[in-house]
């Protein structure tokens, strides 16, 4: 192990690989930040380019991209309330309110620091877990996936603040949208109303672009002004305030990273659930939960740490079993296969040096992306001071091009525009958009694993309650739903005590 590690480090610090890494990180940041692009597109486009490279160089380039993308997505989440990908959405919760208050610099500073540290912790976690990776992955079968999806949904519903009921309603509608399209278990088409575009279901990326980027531009256009309200002229020092906040909230950082790395290792849902679970845990454990969603920097730290730590975690199922944790990982698998690396239990043994090279590249890229973010922060915050009348048409047209670029499908453009209207109406009538998005992400996984579980048990529901991991997850679901009520009761008791 140490030999391979030293070899990997030695290779990484050559001029060639450092420049590949920087190139990858830059591409990752750009693709992460432009709504609609994201890591999947970046990797898919670079596949032909890596064709002629030797495996080491290709892996360094890919590691750079994967390290740069999450933080790129956070930048647009903070500045424009536009998550680059679903896991970035949790950063919007408090990052964007901070930007509205004119504290985008601090939010970027905190996000950059939390991302870099979270990414490093995630990688450390992955190294520690490799020996027992197989056991972990084998623990999660369909019943566990179902419980995890439900846990993700409930954790998010309770983190919508004082809007639990409306959060649940949005979630219901999100699930409704998730059921549209080809039913993988039954093999039939549902709810498509004869529209061919809907065969593949409601697409997540156009929905995200519409609900966040376009809806935000509509909302800003109707009120005018700029993203940052108030006259506070921000100095660079605020960026370092953000950095300092991270070190002041080390427990939030560590907890977020641990949740990210662990949940990220569960294929399929890991990434998205991880950042939300981390966010809602931070909120639940906070002494001042009401301030979350209003621009509490802890919310940014918790979601960012988990968002970057998840990559280390999600490499485990990808490398060890060839089961991609996300669309991005699926493309990454393609890169591996094209270079003759067959994913599976033996990959870790046969190509130790390459794997360590990837891990080192990934961690260095996280740090590089964050440093770049810190350096650019003072210029990036200018976006929040730009007149909305410039910002709105530019962001809208680039976002629609991004929606098209994803699959070269004009239907995605129309979908993004329609979700823009839906998103605006949700803002206007105060329904949380985030539970809708998460339901859209988790809906098909929940349904698929529900049916698979029942096929495993020949139709008996006991399968959900007789497996230890599923039981543990069920207990967590109950706790996450009951905790707000319990807090309320205790507060009422103490409150009425004061009253008398």
């Amino acid at each position, binding site marked *: 192990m140490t030999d391979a590690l030293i070899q990997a480090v030695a290779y990484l610090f050559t001029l060639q690989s450092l420049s590949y890494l920087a190139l990858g990180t830059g591409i990752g940041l750009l693709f992460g930040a*432009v709504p609609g692009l994201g890591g999947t597109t970046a990797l898919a*486009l670079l596949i032909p380019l890596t064709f002629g490279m030797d495996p080491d160089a290709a892996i360094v380039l890919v590691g750079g991209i994967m390290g740069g993308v999450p933080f790129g997505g956070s930048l647009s989440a903070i500045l424009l309330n536009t998550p680059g990908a679903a896991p970035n959405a949790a950063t919007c919760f408090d990052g964007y309110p901070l930007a509205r208050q004119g504290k985008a610099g601090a939010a970027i500073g905190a996000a950059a620091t939390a991302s870099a540290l979270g990414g490093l912790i995630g990688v450390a976690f992955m190294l520690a877990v490799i020996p027992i990776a197989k056991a972990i992955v084998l623990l999660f079968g369909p019943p566990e996936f179902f419980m995890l999806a439900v846990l993700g949904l409930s954790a998010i519903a309770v983190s919508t603040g*004082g*809007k*639990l*009921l*409306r959060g*649940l*309603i949005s979630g*219901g*509608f999100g*699930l*409704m949208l998730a*059921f549209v399209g080809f*039913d993988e*278990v*039954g093999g*039939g088409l*549902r*709810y498509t109303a004869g529209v061919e575009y809907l065969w593949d279901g409601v697409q997540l990326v156009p929905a995200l672009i519409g609900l966040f980027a*376009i809806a935000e531009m*509509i909302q800003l*256009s*109707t*009120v005018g002004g700029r993203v940052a309200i108030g006259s506070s002229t921000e100095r660079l020092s605020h960026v370092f305030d953000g950095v300092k906040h991270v070190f002041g909230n080390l427990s939030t950082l560590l907890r977020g990273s641990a949740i990210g790395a662990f949940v990220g290792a569960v294929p399929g849902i890991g990434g998205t659930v991880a950042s939300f679970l981390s966010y809602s845990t931070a909120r639940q454990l906070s002494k001042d939960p009401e301030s979350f969603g209003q621009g509490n920097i802890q919310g940014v730290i918790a979601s960012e740490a988990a968002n970057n730590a998840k990559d280390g975690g999600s490499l485990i199922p990808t490398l060890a079993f060839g089961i991609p944790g996300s669309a991005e990982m699926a493309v990454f698998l393609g890169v591996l296969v094209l270079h003759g690396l067959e994913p599976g239990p033996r990959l870790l043994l046969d190509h130790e040096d390459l794997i360590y090279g990837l891990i080192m590249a990934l961690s260095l890229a996280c740090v590089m992306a964050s440093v770049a973010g810190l350096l650019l922060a003072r210029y990036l915050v200018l976006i929040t001071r730009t*007149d909305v*009348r*410039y910002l*709105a*048409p*530019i962001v*809208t*047209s*680039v976002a*629609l*091009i991004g929606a*098209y*670029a994803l699959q*070269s499908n*004009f239907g995605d*453009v*129309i979908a993004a*525009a329609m979700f*823009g*209207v839906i998103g*605006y*109406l949700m803002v*206007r*009538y*105060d*329904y949380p958009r985030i539970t809708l998005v998460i339901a859209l992400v988790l809906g098909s996984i*929940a*349904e698929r694993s*529900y*049916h698979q579980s029942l096929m495993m048990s020949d139709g008996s529901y006991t399968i959900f309650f007789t497996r230890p991991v599923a039981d543990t997850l069920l207990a967590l679901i109950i706790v996450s739903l009951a905790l*707000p009520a319990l807090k*309320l009761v205790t*507060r009422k008791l103490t409150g009425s005590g004061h009253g008398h």
Partner: protein
Amino acid sequence: MGTNGLRRARVPILLLLGMGGFLFVSYGYGPEERALPVLVAWATIAFLVLEILVQTGTPIGRRLEMLIQGREAQFDSEHAPIGRALIHAVVWPGLLVGLTLMIGMLPASFLYVCLSLKVVGGKPWPRALATAVAVTAFAWLLFEWGLSYRLYSGVLLEVLAG
């Protein structure tokens, strides 16, 4: 509850109708295909009924609100008048989508940015043109040149090309 209460509850009532329609369609599918959709639809309908009770401001609704969310109901905050909002939410994005469909992505982006800056933003022509050129150039550089994407070229071009 009065007309004011009904007015506040109009959104959940509309959503209730929508979810009812979804439920109706669901019962047209086989038992396995509709199992989870039906479950979700009924649960959401229950939440919507609660929300309607809360929004109409009945005593039951208030107590519910305290029980579920731990605080008094918050009623819809004020926004720009719906007419002006609709122009920004539907007319302008609709224009962009329509233009894109007809003349393709890059020309449509150019026209849209330019027109939007001039008409909504009230900016002078030179500045509107310059911004539109910059945006189109960025999109062209990134997608067509850098990534060799073929951006949508519009129906008109296809018709003209036969």
